[in-house]
C-alpha cells in the first residue's frame, strides 16, 4: 500500500441514544452491534426495539469475522477526507453472526485489484481521520473454508 497523506477531516458520526453504544464500543477497541435480548437477533443499524419482535436491544461484541458480499473501488473524491487515499475499497461485509447482517466498511491491507466477492475478512478498529472517533475496518485473512 502507498503512503497515505490525509489533508482533510472525514465525516464524523453524530450518535444518538440508539447508536451511541456502537461508538462507545469502538472507543474501547471493540466492535459491538445491537442485539435483541428476547429473540437474540442482531440488528444493524441499531434500533431501540427489535425490528422483528419489538424486544429490548443491547450492544454485544461480535467476532469481527465476515466476508465480502460486494465491493467498489472508489476513484473519485466524492467525500471529504479521502482524496489522499484514492483509490480505496469499500465493501459490504456480511458478518458471520447472522445471514444478511452487514456492515459497509473500508478494507485495509489489500490492493483493489486483489479484492474479490466472498473473500474472508477480519474486523479491526482504526481512527476516523481527523476525529476522536474510532471505527471498524476490515482486513483480508488467509482463505480457509468459513
Amino acid at each position, binding site marked *: 500500500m502507498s503512503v497515505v497523506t490525509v489533508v482533510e*477531516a*472525514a*465525516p*464524523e*458520526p*453524530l*450518535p*444518538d441514544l440508539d*447508536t451511541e453504544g*456502537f461508538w462507545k464500543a469502538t472507543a474501547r477497541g471493540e466492535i459491538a452491534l445491537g442485539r435483541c435480548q428476547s429473540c437474540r437477533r442482531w440488528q*444493524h*443499524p441499531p434500533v431501540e426495539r427489535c425490528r422483528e419482535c419489538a424486544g429490548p436491544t443491547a450492544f454485544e461484541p461480535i467476532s469481527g469475522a465476515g466476508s465480502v*458480499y*460486494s*465491493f*467498489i*473501488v*472508489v*476513484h*473519485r473524491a*466524492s*467525500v*471529504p*477526507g*479521502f482524496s489522499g*487515499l484514492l*483509490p*480505496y475499497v*469499500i465493501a*459490504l461485509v456480511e458478518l458471520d453472526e447472522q445471514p*444478511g447482517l*452487514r*456492515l*459497509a*466498511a*473500508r478494507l485495509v491491507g489489500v490492493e*483493489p485489484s486483489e479484492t474479490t*466477492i466472498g473473500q474472508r475478512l477480519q474486523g479491526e478498529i482504526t481512527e*476516523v*481521520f481527523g*476525529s476522536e*472517533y474510532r*471505527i471498524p*475496518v476490515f482486513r483480508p485473512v488467509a482463505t480457509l473454508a468459513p
Partner: protein
Amino acid sequence: MSTAIAGIGRTEYSRNSGRTTMAMAAEACRGAVADTGLDLAEVDGMICFQAAGDSVGPLAVSQSIGLPELAWSIDMNGGGNVVANVIATAAAAIEAGLCRAVVAYRSLNGRSGYRFGTATGKLSVGGPLQFEAPHGYLVPPQWIAMWAKRHQHVYGSTCEDLGQIATTQRAHAVNNPHAINRTPLTMDDYMAGRWINEPFRIFDCAYEIDGAVAILIVGRELAASLRQPPVWLVGSGDSQSGRGWTEWDDPTQMYSRYAAPRLWNRTGLSAEDMDVACMYDCFTYTVMATMEDFGFCEKGGVGEFFAKGQATYGGDVVVNPHGGLLSEGYIHGLNHYYEAALQLRGQGGERQVPDAKLALVTAGAGPYGGASVLSSEEP
C-alpha cells in the same frame, strides 16, 4: 375521474444557469400552463419535490407567478424516488376534489449548486449513514455501484452491458436539441471513460445540470377544453423502503420488484405493451435492474437486449428517447415525464417514436421508487 397531463414546461438545461431555483421554477410553471391555453389564475394546486433544501417550495413559487392562492399544495422531501409519487399524489388530489389544476415542478441548480454525487465541507452525519460516512461511503454513485457489482457477480453482467445502455441513450440524445450531451458515444469511448467508483465509469453516471421542469395535471373535464392532446395517467405503483442500501437482501433487484407487479396489476398492462420507456437512469445499472424487474427481459439479459437493438427505434420499446438523465441531463426524473408526454402527443420531432401510445415512466433506485403508465388514449 380520469386525470391527464395537459401541459408541459421547462427551462434551458445548462451547466451553470446563473439563475435562482425560484426564477427557473417560475419559468417552467408558467410554460406548462401557457402550453395549454389555460388561464394561469385557474391553477389552484402545486406540488414539488426537493432534497437537502436545494430548491424552493410551492408557497413561494406560487406567489412569484402571481397565483391568487393555492387550494392544495405539497413540498415533498425526496429525490428521484418520489417523482412518481408526486405525479400520483397530484392526480389523487384532483380525483378527491381538493383542486382542479395542479402544477408539479422540479427546479435545481444540480451542477452549479448542490451536487448529489459529491459531499463537501466538514460533515457530521446522523442516522443510519453515520456508520458509513466516516469510511468515505456516503453518496449514490457509490451505493449503486455496490449493487451493480453484486449483479455482475450473481448474473455475470458486465461493464460492456452497462455501456450498451450508455451508448444507446447517447445515440438518442444526438437527436434531442435540448440535451446537454449530444456527442455520439462509442463503446470504445465508454470503456475509456475514467473510473468514478468501479464498476462505474464516468459514462455510467447521470449528468448533473441546472434547470427546471413543470407538468400540469388536470381532471377529465378541464383536459377536454385545453389546447394540447391530453396524456392520460393510467395508473401508478410505488414502493419505498423495507431495508436500506446496505441491508437490502438482494441488490440485483430494486424497489421495482414490488412496484412493478403493483403497477401491472392495477393497469392490466405489461412491459410488452409499452412503446416508450422513460427509465430512471441516475446510473446505467438502475436501468438494468429496473428493466429486469418490470419484465422487459430476463435477469442478466439487459445488455443483450440493448446490444440487439430491442431498446431503440425499430425494436421492442424505445428506452429514454430523450437520452435520459445520462445524456439529456439530470432534472431528477421529472424530465422523463416531460419526454413521455411529448412522445405520446406525437411532438417528439426528429426523435418521435412512431405510433407511441403507451409509456412507462419510472423514478427512483435501490429500495426507493415508483412508476407510472401514461397513455395517449383515455383509459
